[in-house]
């Protein structure tokens, strides 16, 4: 009975709805949220009229943002969808931000001060083409200011007031490639210039008011062309010929086309390199990149080319900035030895000696080269011209430089996180204390007295503010050492720019960052990409004197044929320990469950030529591998072919050169999905480091079911090829979803099931013995989530207690994948309201705590859903016994409780993935969600049953104890006295 009562108590505790909502004063205590925008593509400074404090940027993450020029904070920000790439950005009417996106088909206007959308217009077109946004100054049709947009083969003139399309010209019928929209400064005429074919230039003249074609002209150039046309002034264009030896200048004055050619060697003498015209827009001059020099060439009114200057080591050149009537300035940066030299010059000065600004700035080496520069001017206190420059760095960070100093910098590479792992912090040692624990006893006492006041509700508002500040700034949180509960960790993050950063889980600050040499653009590799990050070495035995390290795997180019680059990084100091450029390719990286004597984990890298390479390359590693040689199995998924294959190691490579770290492997099994009816869209495995606490599940009727726990299970979701597109492209009859659970050692299909009328996208998580997946049901027009739980029947007869006592059970015998599995799978489906961007499951250190699914919703929030809702044993009317076990009555849809959003009111913009890390405290799991933003929090799916809450008042406890002791003494004295009196009576 007592057990039952206890069970009931537990049930009571677990079935009460946990609210994850927090109180106002708990915001920021254990969570942090960082806003990013990504690598800046375009930047537009506010002009005089619109206030000078802001800069507008659009980025490669499709973010449009308004930044504070003084501090670099975000005033407002919009994250457009992943398919809505921003092509152009400008300001119209002095109050609207105009963006052109989705390959020139969507034009939007946003209010400058607050970022509200004012209007949006869809510009239809038929043919993919270059997209150009041009906002001419003082060009009016009736009373509207015009916006000229070329996109999808059409020229549109759009009113900037309401986005109405005033007129439209379709170029789709003509096979031409429009490259420039030029406005004549004298009259309301628009020139449309471009190529048809490779050498035929054409110019169309339109009347801006109504789009009437005034004139059109074309001319055949004497040679082919290379690169794109550059407009130097309103009537002059330049381009290189196809062998890049001549500059062709094209004069389009009044619609007539005249061209001139000039050999580059005539201008600057002989040179060996290949010339490129840089796309910077400078009035009257243009920049030519040749042999790592930049040559500035001026185009005179007579059409003559004059060399103005030759600059070495130029990293970037800005566009021209108009500073006063007829005067323009531009900036360029040069990389010096340790500094960056930054020059602002007058465009019109003949010899370019008239420098406005010449400054040197020290920029952190780990930021790499400068890739883009945008300039802006301001009036100094002495009424002279001042300039500030916005620089986009190689690691995607953004820097504002003014007066030779970095005013602010933003680490915007973190908007494009590729992979994350968590690493432990150093153990606290004597003398290595990084942060002070507490200031002194007095401070400590004061803090607790304040807390006590707060608890007893006698604190004044000032005291409350002080308490709040104290909690937020608690040095305990951001200390650089391991804590008892395992809340403090390092999140080691690999970004798309090839930079590795370590973030502290306490407050999210960057502990160290390193731009990997291997993943930078170089002569050897033009476009390296970082792929994954792995734990390389986790010292347990030598935790005090050895640092853990991580392995970053990258590749040259995104195709399979690119060679591999490996980097080994010290996780505490952020130093690159070793970097390898390998000759072989990479298809897969397999961390093996073996470590060598230095506690380095063995990794197999499978290349595209069916070879496996062992790392680290030491004889010891080979020896360790030989011991487990026959037990290394892996699988590969060929998504395009619809084939999954299983592999095992065979022997050393046979080749001319003996390489003992190279192995060949054989195919053990294959699963071939019929290509006409199935297409692989998702594969999910269990996390390799997952811990399962109990293998058995006790049913309500005292029955036991054994979970089928194998670390070699793979979940595969296939859809009908017709239904593999977007939702709505297939009818319910031609859509189906087939799910498989496959053993990856033997290739056995353990479970197979078809969902009719369902299609992807499929998001799934696999944990312990269950899979939960999310898909769309076309017949019900709703999203669904299903759960499949796999139970082992071969151990089902171990229920007899006597067998267990006498040791006749088979629970301790090793399990072999080659035995025929006797499994049963239970499954159930439910409707779910949201579409899902990412799905994850909480993981705790020992796996005792009940699990929660973390669902990244379409609204960029993270929802925590108890696994109990996804239990295939839910029935409509559970019996009393089942209720006691914790089975929730069956409902057709999964509940969404608004308090269970772990992100509260925050949006993790552009959410891509959720990751969970167990803390040392069993009840708690750390959650890191990333997309354009980063969000970190810790959650306790069954509440923190194993520790006191953070705001527990120790002082109150102490005082209570003291008071009790005092009371005991007082009553004791009193009773003694009374007893004495009794005795004397």
């Amino acid at each position, binding site marked *: *009975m007592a057990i039952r*009562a206890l069970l*009931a108590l537990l*049930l*009571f505790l677990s*079935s*009460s*709805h946990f609210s994850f909502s927090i109180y106002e004063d708990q915001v920021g205590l254990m969570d942090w949220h960082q806003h990013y925008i990504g690598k800046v593509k375009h930047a537009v400074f506010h002009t005089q009229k619109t206030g000078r404090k802001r800069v507008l940027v659009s980025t490669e993450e499709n973010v449009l943002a308004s930044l504070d020029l003084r501090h670099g904070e975000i005033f407002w920000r919009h994250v457009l969808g992943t398919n809505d790439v921003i092509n152009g950005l400008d300001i119209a009417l002095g109050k609207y931000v105009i963006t052109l996106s989705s390959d020139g088909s969507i034009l939007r206007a946003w209010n400058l001060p607050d970022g509200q959308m004012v209007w949006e217009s869809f510009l239809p077109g038929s043919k993919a083409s270059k997209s150009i946004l041009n906002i001419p100054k003082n060009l009016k049709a009736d009373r509207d200011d015009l916006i000229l947009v070329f996109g999808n083969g059409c020229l549109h003139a759009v009113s900037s007031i309401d986005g109405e399309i005033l007129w439209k010209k379709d170029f789709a019928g003509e096979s031409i490639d429009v490259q420039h929209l030029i406005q004549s400064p004298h009259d309301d005429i628009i020139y449309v210039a471009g190529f048809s074919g490779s050498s035929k230039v054409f110019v169309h003249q339109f009347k801006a008011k109504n789009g009437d074609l005034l004139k059109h002209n074309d001319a055949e150039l004497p040679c082919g062309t290379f690169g794109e046309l550059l407009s130097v002034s309103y009537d002059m264009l330049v381009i290189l010929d196809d062998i890049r030896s001549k500059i062709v200048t094209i004069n389009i004055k009044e619609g007539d086309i005249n061209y001139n050619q000039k050999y580059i060697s005539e201008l600057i003498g002989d040179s060996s390199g290949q010339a490129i015209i840089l796309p910077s827009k400078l009035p009257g001059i243009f920049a030519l990149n040749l042999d790592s020099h930049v040559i500035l060439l001026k185009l005179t009114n007579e059409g003559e080319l004059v060399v103005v200057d030759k600059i070495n080591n130029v990293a970037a050149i800005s566009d021209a900035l108009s500073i006063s009537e007829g005067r323009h300035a531009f900036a360029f940066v040069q990389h010096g030895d340790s500094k960056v030299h930054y020059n602002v010059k007058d465009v019109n000065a003949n010899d370019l000696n008239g420098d406005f600004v010449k400054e040197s700035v020290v920029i952190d080496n780990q930021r790499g080269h400068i890739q883009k520069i945008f300039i802006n001017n301001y009036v100094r206190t002495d009424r002279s011209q001042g300039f500030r420059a916005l620089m986009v760095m190689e690691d995607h960070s953004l820097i504002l430089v003014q007066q030779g100093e970095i005013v602010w910098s933003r680490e915007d590479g973190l908007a494009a996180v590729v992979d994350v792992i968590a690493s432990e912090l150093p153990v606290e040692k004597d003398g290595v204390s990084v942060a002070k624990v507490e200031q002194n006893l007095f401070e400590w006492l004061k803090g607790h007295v304040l807390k006590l006041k707060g608890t007893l509700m006698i604190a004044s508002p000032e005291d409350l503010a002080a308490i709040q500040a104290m909690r937020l700034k608690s040095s305990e949180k951001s200390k650089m050492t391991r804590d008892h509960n395992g809340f403090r960790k390092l999140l080691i993050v690999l970004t798309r720019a090839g930079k590795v950063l370590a973030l502290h889980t306490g407050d999210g600050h960057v502990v160290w960052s390193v731009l990997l040499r291997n993943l930078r653009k170089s002569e050897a590799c033009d476009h390296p990409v970082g792929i994954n990050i792995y734990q390389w070495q986790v010292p347990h035995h030598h935790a005090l004197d050895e640092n853990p390290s991580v392995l970053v795997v990258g590749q040259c180019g995104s195709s399979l044929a690119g060679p591999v680059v490996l980097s080994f990084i010290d996780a505490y100091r952020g130093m690159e320990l070793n970097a390898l450029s390998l000759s072989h390719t990479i298809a897969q990286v397999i961390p093996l469950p073996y470590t060598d004597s230095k506690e380095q984990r063995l990794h197999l890298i499978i290349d595209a030529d069916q070879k496996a390479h062992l790392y680290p390359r030491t004889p010891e590693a080979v020896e360790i591998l030989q011991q487990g040689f026959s037990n290394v199995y892996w699988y590969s998924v060929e998504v395009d*072919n619809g*084939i999954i294959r299983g592999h*095992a190691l*065979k022997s050393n490579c046979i080749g001319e050169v003996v390489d003992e770290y190279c192995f060949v492997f*054989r195919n*053990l*099994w*294959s*699963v*071939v*999905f*019929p290509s*006409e*009816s*199935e297409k692989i869209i998702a594969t999910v495995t269990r996390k390799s480091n997952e811990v399962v606490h109990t293998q058995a599940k006790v049913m309500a009727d005292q029955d036991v079911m054994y979970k089928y726990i194998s670390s070699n299970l793979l979940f595969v979701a296939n859809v*009908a090829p017709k239904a593999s597109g977007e939702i709505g492209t297939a009818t319910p*009859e*031609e*859509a189906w979803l087939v799910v498989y659970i496959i053993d990856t050692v*033997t*290739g*056995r*299909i353990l479970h*197979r*099931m*078809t*969902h*009719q009328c369902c299609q992807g996208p499929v998001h799934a998580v696999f944990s312990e013995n269950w899979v939960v997946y999310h898909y769309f049901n076309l017949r*019900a027009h709703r999203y*669904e989530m299903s759960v499949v739980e796999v139970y082992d029947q071969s151990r089902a007869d171990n229920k007899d207690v006597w067998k267990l006592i006498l040791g006749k059970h088979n629970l301790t*015998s090793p*399990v*072999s994948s*080659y*035995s*025929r599995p006797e499994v049963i799978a239970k*499954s*159930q*489906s*439910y409707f779910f309201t949201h579409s899902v961007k990412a799905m994850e499951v909480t993981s705790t250190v020992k796996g005792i705590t009940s699990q929660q699914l973390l669902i990244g919703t379409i609204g960029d929030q993270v929802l925590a859903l108890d696994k109990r809702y996804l239990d295939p044993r839910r029935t409509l009317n559970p019996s*009393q016994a089942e209720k006691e076990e914790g089975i*929730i*009555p069956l*409902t*057709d849809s*999964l*509940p*969404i409780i608004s308090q269970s959003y772990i992100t509260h009111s925050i949006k993790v913009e552009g959410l891509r993935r959720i990751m969970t890390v167990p803390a040392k405290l069993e009840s708690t799991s750390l959650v890191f969600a990333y997309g354009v933003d980063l969000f970190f929090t810790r959650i306790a799916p069954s509440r923190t049953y194993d520790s006191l809450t953070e705001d527990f008042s120790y002082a109150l406890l102490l005082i209570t104890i003291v008071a009790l002791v005092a009371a005991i003494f007082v*009553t004791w004295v009193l009773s003694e006295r*009374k*007893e004495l009196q*009794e005795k004397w009576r």
Partner: protein
Amino acid sequence: MSVIQLVLAFTVSLFLVSSLAFESDELLIDDEEFGLEGGLTRPQSPPPTATTTSRKRFSESGSDSKIQFNLEHAFGDSQFSGAGNFSSRLKIWNHGGQTLTKLRFSRNSLNEIEQKNFEKLLQEDDFYRIRLPSNVLSPPGRDYIISSVKARCLTGEGLEENFVIHMEGLSIVAVNYGAPGACPYPRQLKLPARWSFRSHTVLRNSEQAPRAPIFSEDVGGEDAEGEIVMPPERSFWAKYWMYLIPLGLIVMNAITQAMNMPEEQAAGQAGAETQRGTNSAVRRR
């Protein structure tokens, strides 16, 4: 029944053959529907090309709709060679889908060399591999279905094996191959007494997933959920309050006794009585 089916199949095949020139999927499905008059179109109808070939074979083979496909095996890394063949009947459902039924398997007995090879596998604890075509009508289909097992798992009295062939229409998706029972891990070397296989074969098709339950009376999922979760809470108190209150009293009693606190006079006579009683006992001592 089979006669009608045959006639139907003939008409269908005629239609199919005649419609080959059009090269349109849609037309084919229409034809099928027309031919079967009101028959359900199953979404997984195999592609037209495969269908025609099957029908051709089928019609060529006359009344016998038997289909055969080969099992091949390899010892370790050797080449694959014939090991037996499966034969089965082609069943055409009235909705147009085709499946295999009545699978039979005849295994070739191992010859001298094969026995030697197998013995070698047993010695080295190496893999015995088998393969099947991925399409039974046009072998090998896109690729072979391979499966492997450690040879030592197969030896018992003689040699025992178990095939579970997963089918999708007429394509084989995968084969679960291995011992019919357990294969305990430290695999013991045991030579078989007889060199003949005892084979078990099973054909398996995909099952339909259970549908999501739809309750008409259940409208607001969240509110209903809140209501439904409440009862255990109530029932707990309703059921166990009578145990809990005495328990609480006992605990409180125990605490007061342990503290040996003298109770106040005003607390009641009973307490005072016991107190006096103990006191007197002490006095008497």
